[in-house]
């Protein structure tokens, strides 16, 4: 189906159009309880076990606002440099859907808790773009529908549908950017960088699990194209189901090339919701709506307005942790890094890991060296993010310590790391199981050196003749014979002593 979609070459898109972005991010807060009731807010769980009359929307039930969620919303607003409303209300967004128990979502409409902010986003090459934030508002999540039977897993063609309301009423914060024009060729990258920056910020605030794969961070990407010839803002599409940072970038790029092709062929872009497909990297239209959606918003009469006092807001401002950009500046200064190196560390997703390794006792240089070289290679080979490698910063720090105390050579240290990555246990357990230790017994090394010299008499002669560099071959042979457990420097000393 997607193969029939015409796409324009990306360079040509950029030549003819200016892309305009708008990003809506939904964040599930990891409060203990749901937004409007006392049910546990937990991912997973047997279906319909975290429910009560309120989150099931039973007749007669009423919502009560979770104060902790309001607190998180205000902290997010403050971290995004927003103004915090002195008075705001919830509103009902009315539409029918089986996984929404009340057939309205309790949300905020024209009175959001936070508005008019910004977030500075650093691109891969270090350029900083300021993304303006329109608003951040509170709302509740819906339940989940599981469509059984049929080919697509979507409602059409399904034999029946199952509903799980464990997620219904989970607190959500929706963060909406203003229109982001002027990013040109870099629009897809800006989109990814923004979501990344937002994710890091939310992580630092400790308000959400920010797991895109579990849906605790969800991004809807609005894309439109402004023809350079007319300068008129184009019709936008809203792409949903974008479940990873990489997908954000791919989805925006795809929509740009698709919309450009539509426009170039004389067509018009339809304002619609589209779904991103991870496997094909393409978007497809959502269900067609016969009429324009009218959500009939009105103030939620079951809840009283929220009027956060200025004292409380300032108190919450005082609870903001070191934010990602502040932290980066500190680390750069403490570790004495160039802009370039810092950026590489950030881009590699290594900064947190290195810092944690340093906190666990390693020196910054040593920690950096492990994460950006050997461990980065391992992550690359396995096709996973650095942070998803099955080794902790504490374990890396322990390996470094073993090297510094001469218990392991660098080569043995890499083997210890391999063992940890293979799930053999902690570094110490791997050292124990694999019998990794430096051979420091000179008698054993002298014996191995003598054997190597005897095996390669011509090399031995060269060394005796003063060609010291030839010693490398003998050292190599000894290392091989000792399975790498010898200290190469000591072996070299012995070789040179034997040949003098």
């Amino acid at each position, binding site marked *: 189906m997607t193969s029939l979609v015409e796409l324009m070459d990306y360079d040509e898109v950029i030549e003819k159009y200016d892309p305009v972005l708008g990003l809506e991010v939904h964040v599930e807060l990891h409060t203990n309880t749901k937004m409007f009731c006392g049910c546990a807010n937990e991912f997973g769980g047997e279906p319909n076990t975290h429910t009560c009359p309120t989150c099931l929307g*039973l*007749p*007669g039930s009423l919502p009560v*606002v979770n104060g902790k969620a309001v607190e998180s919303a205000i902290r997010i607003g403050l971290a995004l440099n927003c103004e915090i409303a002195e008075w705001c209300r919830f509103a009902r967004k009315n539409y029918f859907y*089986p996984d929404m128990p009340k*057939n309205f979502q309790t949300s905020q409409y024209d009175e959001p808790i936070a508005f008019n902010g910004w977030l500075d986003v650093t691109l891969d090459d270090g350029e900083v773009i300021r993304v303006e934030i329109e608003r951040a508002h509170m709302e509740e999540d819906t339940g989940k529908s599981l469509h059984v039977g049929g080919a697509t897993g979507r409602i059409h063609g399904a034999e029946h549908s199952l509903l799980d309301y464990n997620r219904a009423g989970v607190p959500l914060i929706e963060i909406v950017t203003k229109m982001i024009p002027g990013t040109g060729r870099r629009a897809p990258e800006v989109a990814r960088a923004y979501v990344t920056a937002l994710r890091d910020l939310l992580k630092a605030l400790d308000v959400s699990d920010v797991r895109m794969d579990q849906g605790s961070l969800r991004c809807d990407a609005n894309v439109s194209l402004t023809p350079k010839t007319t300068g008129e803002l184009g019709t936008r599409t809203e792409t949903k189901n974008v479940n990873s940072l990489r997908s954000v970038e791919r989805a925006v790029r795809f929509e740009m090339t698709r919309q450009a092709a539509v426009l170039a062929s004389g067509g018009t872009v339809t304002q619609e919701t589209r779904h991103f497909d991870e496997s094909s990297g393409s978007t497809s239209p959502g269900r067609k709506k016969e009429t324009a959606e009218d959500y*009939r918003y009105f103030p939620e009469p079951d809840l009283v307005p929220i009027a956060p006092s200025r004292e409380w807001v300032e108190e919450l401002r005082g609870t903001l942790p070191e934010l990602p950009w502040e932290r980066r500046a500190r680390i750069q200064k403490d570790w004495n890094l160039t802009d370039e190196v810092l950026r590489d560390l950030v881009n590699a997703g290594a900064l947190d890991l290195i810092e944690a390794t340093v906190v666990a006792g390693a020196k910054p240089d040593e920690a950096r060296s492990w994460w950006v070289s050997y461990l980065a290679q391992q992550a690359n080979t396995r096709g996973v993010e650095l942070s998803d490698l099955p080794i902790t910063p504490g374990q890396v720090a322990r390996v470094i310590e073993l090297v510094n105390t001469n218990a392991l050579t660098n080569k043995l240290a890499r083997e210890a790391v391999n063992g940890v990555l293979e799930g053999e246990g902690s570094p110490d357990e791997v050292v124990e199981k694999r019998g990794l230790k430096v051979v420091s017994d000179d008698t054993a090394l002298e014996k191995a050196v003598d054997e190597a010299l005897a095996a390669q008499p011509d090399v031995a002669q060269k060394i005796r003749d003063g060609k010291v560099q030839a010693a490398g071959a003998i050292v190599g042979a000894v290392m091989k014979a000792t399975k790498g457990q010898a200290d190469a420097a000591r072996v070299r000393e012995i070789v040179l002593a034997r040949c003098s």
Partner: protein
Amino acid sequence: MTNDLIHATAAELAAKIHSGEVSSVEVTQAHLDRIAETDGKVNAFLHVDAEGALAQARKVDADVKAGKVVSPLAGVPLALKDVMTTEGVPTTVGSKILEGWLPPYDATVTRKLKEAGVVILGKTNMDEFAMGSSTENSAYGPTHNPWDLDRIPGGSGGGSSAALAAHQAPLAIGTDTGGSIRQPGAVTGTVGVKPTYGGVSRYGLVAFSSSLDQAGPCARTVLDAALLHEIIAGHDEMDSTSINEPVPAVVAAAREGLNGDLSGVRVGVVTQFQGEGYQPGVLRSFQAAVSQLKELGAEIADVSCPSFDYALPAYYLIAPSECSSNLARFDAMRYGLRVGDDGTRSTEEVMSLTREAGFGDEVKRRIMIGTYALSSGYYDAYYGSAQKVRTLITRDFQKAFATFDVLISPTTPTTAFKIGERANDPIAMYKADLCTIPANLAGTPAMSVPSGLSDEDGLPVGLQIMAPALQDHRMYRVAAAYEAARGAFGGPSL
């Protein structure tokens, strides 16, 4: 004996039960017998829970025997409007769409009643989703006014008021969104109180219009209503709109009123609620009440509240708007009726067929009006304007209460009309709530106390007394004093 028990007030019954003179089981059984005997004609009850009622009665009797302190109305039977959820006991809200639903939880009002040892006899009939002024909109047939079985008992809480008038219960719970406690009280000769909005928890009250709905006590005497009021009122953390203030001392106020002295109490007569469209007998009854209040020492003067003229149209935008959203949850997916689910139809088709079959005409009418009023492009003109009227009405009340302690008016423009008389004329039907709606829009307390019978048709008339927010006790004092001065006015013969 049975006759004595069913004609006694709740306060009298409580005293007898608590002193051991009579058991709660006897009192309960007497009322169950009365229901069995009369409800074929009245149809006040949708569900009688004899077993649950007698179990509660036995528990109270054991407590009395054990000398345990019992709350003021422990052991006294009560009729509960079917809009309040009752765990494991059917709650239909007078609608087909909830037929067979057994709520898994008790409303806060239900819970408080149970905790106070009140004996819940069953669930009373009502206009579907509390939308109506005659109980004719019940999906389970109309309730008949015990004073004249051809006439309506008021609505939406006609079941509760008829149960009181028919002596099937000495106490009842109603809910009042635009007059659904007071108007039935007026036309059945019983007392009905709408407390200050937020005074009684709405948790478990199946919502019609959230910003207007308010549960309250119904009884045959002012003191009984006050006793019940104090049991069900109070802050509830399950309802964000419930007021976190001490419950007004309404029992003390009712007892004070019984002294018969209203000296210095300033009473304002709302000039908007008389004249054209008002039944002469109702107005004469009202004037007699005014004279009686004067004799009790009250200072009486007219007061004009011009915005009250716009209360009815504003109400018929706000209430349907909120109901269009509140009733969206009845979609056949989780509970209640499901129509057309034969494996061939889509979710939307099943939802539509269920709502088509499950909702009555008046409910559909209001859902449509509300959906329209909230639509983009119409919101400001309809819902927005109505909210402004609401503010104006609140200001009229504030102005009036700067001069007067309470305001009074007839509760309804007419006495009970005939069943079917206004069924095809929604506007005429809506006018039954002309005098009661302003208090809902302003969130202020108001009550109806019988002012005897209309001289032209011999049917009951209600006197409405209104007070400022949180000053519920003021109207109880005036009502109790008036009630004592008025004296008995007979009762229906069934």
